[in-house]
């Protein structure tokens, strides 16, 4: 296994996301799937770098979610923001429900 796989998102997850937007008869070559994997990692590095630069300029040590959102906008990916905001809200609701379920559960 080693270092290489640590730098990439799992090919199974990437493949699943791809299949959801393709017609059922579409096929993806192994090389194409690996290329998309690499592009996704490059995307993360690229956006993180931009966010990290901003944090450095502002003398902050921690890169947070808002920094990533800002970097996405700065690099031309602002059409992703609405979906991300909705996703964050759903996640916070999920965490809240989970916390309250744990609080109410009586063994």
């Amino acid at each position: 296994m080693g270092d290489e796989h640590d730098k990439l998102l799992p090919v199974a997850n990437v493949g699943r996301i791809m299949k959801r937007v393709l017609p059922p008869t579409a096929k993806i070559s192994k090389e194409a799937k690996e290329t998309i994997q690499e592009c996704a990692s490059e995307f993360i590095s690229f956006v993180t770098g931009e966010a990290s630069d901003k944090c450095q300029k502002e003398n902050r040590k921690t890169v947070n979610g808002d920094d990533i959102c800002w970097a996405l906008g700065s690099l031309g990916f602002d059409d992703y923001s609405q979906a991300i905001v909705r996703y964050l809200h759903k996640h916070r609701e999920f965490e809240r429900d989970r916390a309250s379920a744990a609080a109410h559960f009586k063994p």
Partner: protein
Amino acid sequence: MRQAGTYSRILSGGGISGRTGPHLLPLARIKKIMKKSSVDVKMISGEAPLVFSKACELFIVELTKRSWNMTIQGKRRTIHKEDIASAVATTDVFDFLVDLVHPNASQHVDLNEDYAP
């Protein structure tokens, strides 16, 4: 009994993979990739990998759709690396991927020098 069922369903997330919760992509892996992007990235807050889990999904979706358009134009049904390269070449926001999909084997080109914002 009813309560226990609700509890375990919330825990499993109801998403595609129980282990990663309701997210499609593993947050720990995303965090690793973020850290490797630069020595300057020291601390990452909890929500940053979460934002990326959605952003990466959207990115993969867009790149896949555009690549598939190239596949169809070539009257094929299998996406190949060349289709991804074509999609990258025709999409401005994907400029940062040009070197990745068209690696120049004969000489190393430093894109940072040529890039004009």
